């Protein structure tokens, strides 16, 4: 009975729910879901700019999500963003390397040479029919395509620095973590990327 008395006293003193391990795990899962839903579309577009292929971009984003969830979900949520983009950039680089090898092999093979990067893009294909702001959307699409073309012409590290800093809004320290280099290198890559892009697009924009 003494035990019950102690227990009831404890209940009287209790003024809030103690964080049960199960609840904490659910909160963590919800936090991860929120993070992934925030970054997934932006990550897809970043991958698409680099890879020029929708399905490849989806694959590397999915892979990055799985790897983050499997290996780093227990880490503090503040660390997820640079880790996620590091995984993503590694995935993009791996895929580009595999493509380069495949392209070299294909060059030795007989038959028609196809380059998926050279497919024609219809600037009107993504403009909603009959939209009230169709000309504005078209101009926006064209401007983005020009930016993408110029980004693809940049060295990979400059492109990464620009997309992570400008598109994703990572600060210098986060970008350095995501790129696996020093903060000084990030500043150099970013500065050169902006300089080159402005030279190429300044007149068009």
């Amino acid at each position: 009975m003494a035990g019950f008395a102690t227990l009831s006293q404890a209940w009287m003193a209790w003024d809030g729910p103690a964080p049960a391990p199960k609840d904490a795990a659910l909160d963590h899962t919800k936090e991860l879901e929120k993070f992934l839903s925030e970054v997934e579309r932006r990550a897809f577009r970043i991958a698409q700019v680099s890879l020029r292929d929708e399905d490849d971009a989806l694959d590397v984003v999915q892979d990055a999500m799985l790897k983050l969830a499997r290996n780093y979900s227990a880490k503090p949520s503040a660390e997820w963003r640079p880790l996620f983009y590091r995984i993503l950039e590694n995935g993009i680089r791996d895929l580009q390397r595999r493509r380069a090898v495949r392209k070299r092999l294909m060059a030795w093979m007989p038959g028609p040479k196809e380059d998926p990067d050279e497919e024609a893009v219809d600037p009107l294909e993504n403009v909603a029919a009959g939209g009230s702001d169709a000309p504005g959307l078209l101009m926006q699409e064209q401007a983005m395509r020009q930016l993408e073309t110029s980004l693809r012409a940049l060295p990979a590290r400059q492109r990464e620095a620009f997309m992570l800093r400008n598109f994703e809004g990572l600060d210098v320290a986060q970008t350095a973590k995501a790129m696996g280099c020093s903060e000084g290198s990030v500043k150099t890559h970013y500065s050169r990327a902006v300089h080159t892009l402005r030279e190429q697009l300044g007149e068009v924009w």
Partner: protein
Amino acid sequence: MNEQSSFEEHGRRLFEASVENIDMRVRSRLTQARHAALDVAAGPRLRFLRLPVWSSAAGVTAAGVLAFALWVGGPMGQPHHAQPVADTQAGLEDLELVASSDENNAAPMEMLQNDIDFYEWAADKTASGDSGSIG
């Protein structure tokens, strides 16, 4: 410096607009990918919670297979008795009636499991041609 800032801002706006214009197919696949990742992050704990869902389905399926074996082939380990095609066909139709319930209504299968001795005995009787004494 201001020109550079406006250049950067313009690029950011274009990117944001392109993110907003991502089509439904891609959005759907991204959602699926997110759920798969969350499933991995949840680990065995949440997967364990799902166990009863598939295990009940597996139980019903296993009961169905057992009933089929008893009904058509007789008890395992005994030689298979040749049966007239019509009898076998009727047995299959009866089995379909019993097994036609879905997972949410597994009562017929439970009945089958509860009276398994009776069905075993009935199958033996049918196989030995002594069908007259059954019901």
